């Protein structure tokens, strides 16, 4: 999976949002990541840390092709409603998803070769926790009420999987808030790489921009 920051993204990021505002959103993402790490550590009984190497606003047309062709992903999608509508997607390459599911299930590495019902349910719960933590931090920062629907799991080749998101499929007219999310796990040590995407409805994105009051 390639990283959106490695690719020239035209009108993304800097022209859509000032550096100071992106810094503010990065700080919000860090707070959310901290809460999610605490919750996941409690759930798994091992220490999990989450860092946010990159936060950016990317046109969705830019994001999807940056996933290497043929990469199989697992994505947890949740509808977002409240003061702004849209959806959140937490996605990982399948091998990373399996590792995370094993941690959630307190199983040894390599004991879950396939995404069975239990592994899928564990990833839904991880996605639920992560999205909930990010959205809670964002809703406090924006002073908005944001709620999530129950999670839905999607698997498949990256482009196809993202296109199955229906009416909320990432579209060119709707920019995405992309939070690169790195998990550091202990006992045994390993790191897992994924993305958390906030895909607001086009109108909702204007509301976010207005609410990010940092100049």
């Amino acid at each position, binding site marked *: 999976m390639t990283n959106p920051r490695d690719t020239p993204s035209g009108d993304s990021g800097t022209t859509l949002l000032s550096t100071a505002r992106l810094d503010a959103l990065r700080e919000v993402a860090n707070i959310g990541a901290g809460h999610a790490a605490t*919750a*996941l550590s*409690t*759930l798994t*009984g091992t220490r999990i840390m989450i860092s946010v190497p990159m936060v950016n606003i990317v046109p969705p047309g830019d994001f999807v092709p940056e996933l290497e062709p043929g990469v199989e992903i697992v994505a947890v999608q949740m509808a977002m409603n409240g003061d702004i509508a849209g959806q959140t997607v937490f996605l990982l390459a399948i091998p990373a998803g399996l590792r995370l599911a094993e941690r*959630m*299930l307190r199983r040894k590495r390599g004991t879950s070769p396939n995404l069975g*019902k*239990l592994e899928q*349910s*564990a990833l*839904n*719960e991880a996605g*639920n*926790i992560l999205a*909930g933590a990010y959205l*809670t931090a964002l809703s406090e920062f924006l002073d908005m009420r944001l709620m999530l629907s*129950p999670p839905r799991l999607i698997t498949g080749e990256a482009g196809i999987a993202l296109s199955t998101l229906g009416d909320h499929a990432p579209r060119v007219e709707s920019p995405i808030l992309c939070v690169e999310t790195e998990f550091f796990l202990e006992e045994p040590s390993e790191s897992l790489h994924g993305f958390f995407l906030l895909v607001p409805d086009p109108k909702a994105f204007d509301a976010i921009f207005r609410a990010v009051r940092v100049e």
Partner: protein
Amino acid sequence: MSSTVLVCDDAVFMRTMVSDILSQAGFTVVGEAENGKQAVEKYQQLKPDLVTMDIIMPEMGGIEAVKQITQLDPAARILMCSAMGQQALVQEALQAGARDFVVKPFQPSRVLEAVQRVLA
């Protein structure tokens, strides 16, 4: 004889986790339900000493299930398992007849403490 428990949650991951915690502590998990409707049906069949109940579930949520179970058996002992930020719903569940609650994600010790309080 160990106390019997019915575990109700729409997520198989959470049902497995709660069942494991309780089994390892010596309780007997007699059944699992994936929504409130199933929980009401299985409560009548299995007559467990305790029910652990999620709040948000498809078909029938945990609060409605608590109302129906306590109507069938006013002495029913139900422990709510809620996610963070659901305090208002927890309050409603307690008013409907639930005995106590734990907040997800939980540590095994917290679940067992709450179960012991409810069964005391």
